[in-house]
């Protein structure tokens, strides 16, 4: 287009007279405001930022105003400083708002035009390792199986997210975990009948009160206990071993009363027992609550292979205890820890099995994997009747020999054809692309090896594999076939094609050029962005047929994916990290100051925020409603904490409280707690959180050797945080940032460090939530703060857009992405900044659709030259 290649291409030299840009020129090509940028810069900026003074190393007199693209990095910086009003600094001559805005607009429009003509989509790294969340989601979508994230170590994060390609490294430890996870997963998914019993332990947090229904998966009239999501690998027996909650000195709680204990599998009761003193359970009589005979009681259950929820809970007694109600002890108190008269609870549960294996069963994983059955006659259904399998064992022995001789009889050929079909279906999904023969060869080699046909495999292993398990060479053919699939599946799960997203430059790359990524790469970018997982078949089909970018198709796919339940990962992975919500798990409020804080409240915080964000994001509200929405989700415990009346029961429901205290994110206990210290609120932390995550203007780190805030000394008159911070701000070095952070945080002072509403500070003085924000707005509490933030709606949306783009690309957002950010915002603005509009415009943006090809290799470096010897 060359729109900005204007006349007077002299460039801004250090010479005193700057070429004055004809202000009308940019306006001719549409929409740019009338401003003389060179004059404004000369008047307000270049006095400091010039070749001589070099203030902040920024030489605006050297930057090219004729061709802004040449100095894009500098100009983007200028745009940002003009937007947030931080430059020129207070005290020096400043342009009025209009002029500053006009200059910013002129610059950004010029930059956007240059970018449109020569897009710089950046270069996402060629290899992007799946992170832990993506890996477990991929396993779920590939094999219909939930695995614990503890199979893999957590990932390092960068730019606030743990899906940043450059930061996701590979260590020997991680590789070992991949190998072992692949082994465990393939064994569970296929359902190896020779699997040995294992023990898993599930502990109940000791700060969790077991006085109410604790989980939506537990029966309505239940009390305490836990619901375990477990994957039964095969049809067989499993043993649930139950250990009860104890006092600190080892007494089991509540055995002086009778409690009805239930074990349920997928809601169906499999056992009911009375524990504690009662006519039919005399074990505890006479020995009081020290009786431990019931501890470690075992319940054996016969289970079908596949995922299940095992609920262990007490039946809630209908009668209320007589006598005076005792005020509840804090869960962290010695009284609580030592009270054996509390109702019985579950301490931990051990799950062991399988025993007495009946067969591989017909789990959802098997249904997903075995898209065909080896041609072994009707007797061999998936469950595999033992006699049939044994009978056919002989036949298969024979055919294996025959196969080795190259005769290739039907059975073996059909086996291999079916294996091929199973493995290519799995590999296509796992590798996220059509598979080739070269992909299948190693998998088939593992199939043969696992099935005990290794003499046919022609693959690496020199000696025939000696599986110690019956699923090896000596087993019946059905089991051997499964063993082969299991071995090949394991190999798929450690393949670099599965573990890494790989983006290849086109075959004839012009170095450093922007190109559109392939449809298949785009499909992966889409699914990892919106689902944190692999593409599904529909997406893969479209990409394979090259139809993903057909008019309307991409948008339709984005909308479909956004509506799909898998987009919950935007809540858990994107919002959870953006807003630091994952930290709710790790906060530990001071039990002396906040004895009310227990595990139930922590979990309620999480559930509330999850439900709220889900309703906003997946409900496709406008982004700014995150700050203003007048509803929230509470159960009885949380409602009590918030002072919301008339909410009873453990389940969460949507409520619209009478007052606006809990509106938006700023009223949520989770965020208020994670931005507090353990024993008091911190206006600084809250202000910093707002600046970083809502306004997108993170404060600079504190200068070295600043004194920390003085804590209240024991014995002395306590002072409020406000008094102490005012003392801190007396230091001008501190004040420069704190005058920005603190007023934001002070406006939330009515919320204590665990998010309760309060009228008086820890010093006993009335809460003073007033303050003046750096832009001059007076605020005096959450409501006016919300209004003040809404006045910066653009900043908030830009922050969200940049964070979402970082998350979508798995790399940091750079200056050359700013034109895309502006475009994303203006597109989304047309749809009131709805979440789907943001997601869609990110998907359509240049950095998401395109990529720079690799820069030319550095010359004179023989080490990196392609091997020609």
């Amino acid at each position, binding site marked *: 287009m060359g729109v900005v290649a204007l006349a007077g291409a002299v460039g801004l030299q250090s010479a005193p007279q700057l070429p004055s840009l004809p202000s009308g020129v940019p306006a001719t090509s549409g929409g740019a405001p009338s401003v003389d940028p060179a004059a404004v810069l000369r008047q307000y900026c270049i006095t400091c930022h010039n070749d001589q003074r070099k203030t902040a190393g920024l030489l605006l007199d050297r930057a090219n105003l004729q061709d802004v693209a040449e100095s894009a990095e500098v100009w983007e910086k200028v745009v940002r400083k003009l937007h947030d009003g931080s430059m020129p600094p207070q005290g020096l001559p400043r342009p009025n708002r209009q002029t500053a805005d006009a200059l910013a607009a002129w610059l950004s429009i010029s930059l956007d035009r240059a970018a449109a003509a020569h897009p710089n989509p950046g270069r996402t790294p060629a290899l992007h390792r799946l992170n832990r969340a993506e890996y477990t989601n991929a396993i779920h979508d590939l094999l219909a199986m939930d695995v614990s994230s503890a199979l893999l170590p957590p990932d390092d994060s960068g730019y606030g997210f743990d899906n940043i390609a450059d*930061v996701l490294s590979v260590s020997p430890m991680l590789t070992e975990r991949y190998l072992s996870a692949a*082994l465990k997963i393939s064994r569970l998914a296929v359902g190896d009948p020779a699997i040995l019993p294992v023990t898993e332990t599930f502990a109940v947090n000791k700060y969790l009160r077991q006085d109410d229904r604790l989980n939506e998966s537990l029966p309505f009239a239940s009390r305490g206990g836990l619901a375990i999501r477990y994957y039964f690998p095969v049809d067989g027996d499993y043993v649930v071993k139950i250990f009860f909650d104890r006092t600190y000195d080892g007494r089991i709680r509540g055995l002086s009363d009778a409690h009805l204990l239930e074990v349920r599998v997928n809601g169906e009761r499999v056992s009911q027992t009375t524990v504690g003193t009662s006519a039919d359970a005399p074990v505890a009589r006479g020995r009081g609550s020290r009786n431990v005979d019931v501890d470690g009681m075992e319940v054996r259950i016969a289970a079908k292979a596949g995922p299940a929820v095992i609920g262990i809970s007490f039946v809630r007694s209908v009668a209320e205890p007589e006598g005076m109600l005792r005020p509840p002890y804090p869960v*962290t108190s010695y009284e609580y820890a030592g009270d054996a008269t509390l109702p019985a609870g579950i301490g931990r549960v051990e799950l062991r099995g399988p025993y007495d294996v009946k067969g591989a069963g017909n789990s959802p994983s098997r249904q997903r994997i075995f898209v065909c059955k080896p041609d072994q006659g009707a007797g061999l259904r998936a469950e595999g009747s033992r006699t049939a399998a044994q009978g056919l064992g002989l036949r298969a022995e024979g055919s294996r020999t025959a196969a080795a001789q190259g005769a290739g009889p039907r059975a073996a050929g059909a086996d291999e054809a079916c294996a091929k079909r199973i493995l290519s279906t799995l590999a296509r999904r796992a590798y996220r692309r059509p598979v080739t023969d070269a992909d299948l060869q190693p998998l088939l080699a593992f199939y043969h090896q696992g099935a005990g046909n290794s003499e046919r495999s022609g693959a690496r292993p020199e000696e025939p*594999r000696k599986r110690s398990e019956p699923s090896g060479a000596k087993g019946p053919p059905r089991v051997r076939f499964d063993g082969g699939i299991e071995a090949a599946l394991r*190999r798929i799960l450690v393949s670099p094609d599965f573990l*890494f997203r790989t983006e290849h430059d086109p075959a004839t790359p012009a170095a450093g050029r922007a190109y559109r990524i392939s449809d298949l790469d785009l499909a992966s970018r889409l699914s990892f962005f919106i689902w944190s997982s692999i593409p599904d078949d529909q997406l893969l089909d479209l990409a394979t047929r090259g139809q993903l970018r057909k008019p309307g198709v991409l948008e339709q796919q984005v909308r479909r994916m956004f509506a799909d339940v898998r987009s919950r990962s935007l809540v858990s992975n994107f919002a959870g990290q953006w807003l630091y919500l994952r930290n709710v798990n790790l906060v530990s409020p*001071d039990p002396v*100051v906040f004895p009310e804080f227990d595990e139930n409240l922590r979990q309620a915080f999480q559930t509330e925020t999850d439900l709220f964000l889900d309703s906003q994001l997946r409900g496709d509200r406008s982004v700014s409603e995150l700050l203003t929405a007048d509803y929230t989700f509470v159960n009885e415990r949380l409602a009590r904490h918030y002072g919301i009346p008339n909410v009873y029961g453990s389940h969460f429901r949507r409520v619209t409280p009478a007052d606006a205290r809990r509106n938006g994110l700023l009223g949520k206990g989770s965020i208020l707690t994670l931005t507090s210290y353990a024993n008091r609120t911190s206006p600084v932390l809250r202000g910093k959180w707002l600046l970083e995550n809502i306004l997108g203007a993170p404060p600079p780190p504190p200068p070295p050797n600043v004194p920390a805030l003085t804590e209240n000394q024991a014995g002395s008159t306590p002072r409020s945080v406000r008094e102490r911070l005012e003392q801190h701000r007396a230091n001008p070095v501190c004040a420069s940032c704190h005058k920005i952070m603190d007023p934001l945080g002070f406006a939330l002072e009515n919320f204590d460090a665990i998010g309760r509403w309060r009228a008086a500070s820890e010093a006993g003085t009335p809460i003073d939530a007033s303050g003046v924000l750096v832009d001059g707005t007076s605020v005096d509490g959450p409501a006016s703060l919300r209004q003040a933030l809404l006045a910066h709606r653009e900043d908030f949306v830009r922050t969200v857009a940049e964070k979402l783009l970082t998350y979508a690309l798995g790399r940091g957002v750079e200056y050359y992405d700013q034109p895309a950010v502006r475009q994303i915002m203006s597109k989304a603005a047309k749809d009131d900044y709805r979440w789907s509009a943001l997601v869609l415009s990110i998907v359509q943006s240049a950095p998401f659709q395109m990529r720079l090809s690799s820069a030319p290799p550095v010359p004179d470096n023989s080490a990196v030259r*392609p091997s020609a010897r």
Partner: protein
Amino acid sequence: MIVTKKHLPRRTFLRGVGATLALPLLDGMVPAFAAVGASAATPARRFTVAYVPNGIQMEKWTPAAEGTAFELPPTLQPLAPFRDHVMVVTGLTNRPAFSVTGEGTGDHVRAAATFLTGVHPKKTEGPDIRAGVSMDQIAARVLGKDTQLSSLELCLDSNELIGACEAGYSCAYANTLSWRNPTTPLPMENQPRAVFERLFGDSDNTTQAARLARIQDDRSVLDSLVAEVTRLQKRLAPPDRGKLTQYLDAIRDIERRIQKAEEQSAIALPVMERPSGGIPSTFAEHARMMFDLQVLAYQCDLTRVTTFLMSREVSPRTYTEIGIPDPHHGLSHHQNNPASMAKLAKINTFHVDQLAYFLGKLKATPDGDGSLLDHVTILYGCGISNSNEHTHDNLPILVIGGETKTGRHVKVAKDTPLTNLQLTLLNTLGVPMDGLGDSTGQLEFVSGV
């Protein structure tokens, strides 16, 4: 259906080389790998680093007297039974942790990132992290030649805290002490179960035949992976190959390990318990379980180097189990408030308590002509002395066990680099080195005089 209780011993003993090692915290009976140790004739040299964060109350740590006649100060009292195995070294300086002009805060992160590297880390939150190879890894290259794992990196904190890394520094700097090379920090493991499985395998069947079968399975997977990764690598532009090179290196590491495992597969197997999943609920339980696992790893000679980040810098952990509800980092900025300082000293002592537990275990485990304590050199300490002011001089450092001249308090000359001590330790361990980070020479007193 209710089934009556099945007997399963809750406490078993490890029987290896005549040792009886109780593992009260480990649960879930499985037979597992063997204990061998190096042959009795030539006990192996081993090296452990244990790090504690957020500074130390030095007035409760520093012995009054120098030389062999020193008395253990309050914080080091838990080490009384091992006094003669302990050398208190005071006065060392970690200059690479100082901020350079314009760099600003970040003293905690720099303390951790420099502690074993002696190299000033690059201030960045992005992927371009850079420090130096850490001395535990230098030791591991030599000491780990004959063991399945060249080193074991452990921690207790979850590294999942978001937005909590110190201003301007990547979390990677705070989450580990170990650097394989200047750009590759090694992740640390905090789940006992995962450490156990790393040491002894995740197989539930540990008969020799099953293990050999597993080794062959692993080997064929790895072989075929090497072929595939190499092929994939060729299709990438040279600058893009880094990550696959990491993957290949990791695979080769594991191949080497499998090779060792196969060579050592004939070893007789004692019965041992495997930790249940999850993180123990108290700091002490967790720390002791991790120390147990290190003793096991040494006893079975699966590795000769362990690095243990007992808590990471800027850790806000609260120690309610010893009556301290305040977050550790907040407390460490004590403003000279006596109450805060007393609490901090209590945490310092609590950490040393756990160290004493480890020493007790080592001492109770025979190795060669003595105990493991005689053949493990331990470096314990922190990269910050006065936490209130973030000072990196006069560091709290202990050298314990091994072939060092312990049973003394040594005060070094002002500005003596911490790396001088580490350089000396490496040479003592039979890892000859001329320099390390900002080192200026060896400290003769460590093994001589």
